[in-house]
């Protein structure tokens, strides 16, 4: 795999994003729900309604609207949100860090717990802990993330009120951040009190998102590890007298990790885009929450901006996953 391959992948992103832009733009204008119909004043005549369309740039033919929008987007201008009355690009960028931090923490929790479960399952293969691991992954996979969210709210927010259940930070505390990456910023500044407060707000939504992913990772890694444990190099290691723990961690894990890394990368993208319900339940101010508001109010420029951002993110993360696979897998690196 060479640099030209990645350059090709980058160039391919342009028509992909263009395709997404066309589909989104057309779909939004075909599906029912006119943003102007939601703000028609009482007593308005046809002229007044037409004037509102003109003010929001919806009076032109679809092709003209699309051409204008696309040329603006090419210049980095995503338009102004109808409902929030602010620059769409700035709005999306201001909210993306919250969702990214949530997705990163959720993925970290899922990888850590899923990895441990998989290793435990293989280590105690054929014994009762493996059955516990299988049962646990089956249970967590069967319940969707938003239901886990509600369970956490009920148990850790109401019955045993130890963790906050809404928002990203404590609204009573006046804390100034210079970026939207609150968690990373407070970590870099060494403000551990703030970091703790942010983490306690993050942990429940992150755990709700992490549980189903944890189960997927645990199952995938356990299968890969079990396969790896039957390979010749593992047999050699056994003959050498290595302990089972050492064989799993030092010999089998690295090879078994490759499909799990690919899966985790893809799942991370879905996690960023799939935080909608969890963000809603925990009143977490990320792009998922923003997307719901945009769809309800038919805020066309904002929906378009959000979907293009998701698409760009998806492409970028896929590239990163490919890069990581190359680093981990010598057959791909030298192939």
């Amino acid at each position, binding site marked *: 795999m060479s640099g030209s391959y990645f350059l090709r992948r980058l160039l391919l992103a342009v028509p992909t994003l263009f395709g997404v832009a066309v589909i989104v733009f057309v779909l939004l204008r075909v599906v029912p729900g006119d943003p102007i119909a939601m703000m028609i004043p009482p007593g308005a005549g046809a002229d007044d309604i037409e004037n509102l369309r003109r003010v929001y740039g919806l009076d032109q033919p679809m092709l003209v609207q699309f051409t204008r929008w696309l040329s603006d987007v090419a210049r980095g201008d995503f338009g102004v949100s109808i409902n929030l009355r602010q620059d769409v690009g700035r709005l999306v960028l201001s909210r993306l860090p919250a969702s990214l931090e949530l997705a990163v923490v959720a993925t970290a929790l899922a990888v850590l717990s899923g990895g441990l479960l998989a290793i435990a399952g293989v280590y105690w293969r054929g014994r009762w802990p493996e059955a516990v691991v299988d049962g646990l992954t089956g249970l967590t996979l069967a319940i969707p993330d938003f239901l886990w969210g509600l369970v956490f709210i009920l148990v850790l927010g109401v019955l045993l009120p130890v963790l906050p259940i809404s928002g990203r930070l404590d609204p*009573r505390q006046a804390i100034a951040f210079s970026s939207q990456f609150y968690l990373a910023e407070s970590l870099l500044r060494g403000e551990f009190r703030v970091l703790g407060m942010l983490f306690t707000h993050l942990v429940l939504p992150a755990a709700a998102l992490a549980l189903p992913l944890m189960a997927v990772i645990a199952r995938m890694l356990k299968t890969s590890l079990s396969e790896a444990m039957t390979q010749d190099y593992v047999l050699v290691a056994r003959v050498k007298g290595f302990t089972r723990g050492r064989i799993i961690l030092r010999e089998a894990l690295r090879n078994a990790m490759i499909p799990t890394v690919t899966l985790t990368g893809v799942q991370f993208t879905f996690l960023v885009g799939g935080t909608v319900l969890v963000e809603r339940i925990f009143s977490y101010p990320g792009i998922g929450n923003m997307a719901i508001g945009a769809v309800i109010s038919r805020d066309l420029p904002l929906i378009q901006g959000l979907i293009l951002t998701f698409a760009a993110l998806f492409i970028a993360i896929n590239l990163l996953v490919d890069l990581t696979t190359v680093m981990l897998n010598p057959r791909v690196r030298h192939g």
Partner: protein
Amino acid sequence: MKSIDRRQVLKYGMGGAAALPVLASPFGRQVLAQDPDSLTIAYNVALPSWDPTVGTSAVNPTLQSIYKSVFDQYLDLAPDLTLKEGLLTGWGWNDDRTQVHFELREGAFWHDGTPVTAEDVVWSLSRAADPDVGNPVQPVWAGIGNFSVDGNSITADVLNFDPVLFKWLAFLTGYVLPKQYYESVGAEGFEQKPVGSGPYMVDAFERDSFLRLKAFDKYWGPKPAFETVVFKFVTDATSRVAEIESGASDLTIEIPYEEFDRLREKSSLQGLSTPVSDIAMIFLNDIGPMEDENVRLAAHHAINKKAIVDRLLRGYGVPIDTLQAPEYAAFDASIEVPYDPDKAKELLAASGFSTDNPVTFSIQTTRGFKPKDFEMIQAIIGMWRDVGIEAEIEIYEIAKHFELRARDELAPAAFYNWGNSIGDPSTSTFFAMFGPSPHSVWDTDDLDGKLLPLLGEPDEAKRIAGYQEVDRYIAEKGYVIPLLQYVQPIVLREGLTMTPHVANYVLPHLVKPAN
């Protein structure tokens, strides 16, 4: 290989669970909302935009509570919907109603410390009337112009007489904004740092998460009881229940009635339920079977509204037979469309329909947009089936409802809720039933002929009596099916008092400590 047994798992598992509160406590212990100087409200809608005069948020009734905390309106509404002073202390027409005059309050200040001037009022009214600004109620404000200012007195020419103008000054988009500040920072700057003249000023705003307000010490009105007010934007009803139950918020609204009944029984909480200016209704479109008066009237007589209120809404609702709720100016208790299934059967029989040969049509409804909306329609369909009406439910999003209504393409029957904070018949009966209105789907000349003269009727008593007559006519002809007036469930912490507002406002300055 080292093995573990069940006892070890249980031991460490229990230990971990027991340690959870301890581990969480340094940072994560719930901040209980029982600070005597602050009030935390778990609110059902997030604030999208700070300009209360432009865009979709400006006409969202639920957002008015937040706007009214930060901005002043020209005039205000008392909790019983009577008009009262706002930033204007005087208002009226001249004798021939060709001019209006306003008197601006002395001693009102913007949150940046500068005084509110008559120029601010004129600029706000002119901006609202400018078609390029995007005020959704622009046609109303375009009814006056050619302003002249003399000190705190403002005079304007009436360009298009509207007897409801003064009520509009206390209604949607009727807010005064600071001319100099807005022009210096622009629309985006205003969104970043809004400045009003209301009882509270913006201290911090985390979009889609929370809004923190501080009491404005130069506010012209009574000093609010709480120095700090936090609106937490908790759009999920289950999460709002958890907020108030866990003590993380002091007050919440718009929760399921079942939860309201459960929470109000708790010793740490109390419940207030008040009928508000929001009604449930079924639009009838003058197409297909709805062109038959017998079918329309049968559909109305067949609905047992009291049963719906009692069984579905646990008693939290007031059955209505016109588009006026009891608190509205044109409410007339003598207009009744009683529940009478036998009469409904007779009416249908007169048009050749029966339970064996039912009349069929579709009915559109939202699901979850309003409390029990879908369930109400299911119950109504059951009641209709008993008399010979077979209706098919079509579920749609509220955005689609608005679009179809504006295009006059609603199904023969469509469920909706109609808010009317000022309680005037023009903003309920007129706009919901006048054919050319983009909000009406009933288009018949007889009704339009009765409604149109009322729009400009200068004699208030005659105007109200006229609307009552029209409401009676609508009930007799069955042009719409009003169902019930909603009741707002409010749960608040013990130790607080609150004056409920019929306009469905949750105003922090109306909440006080009990002692």
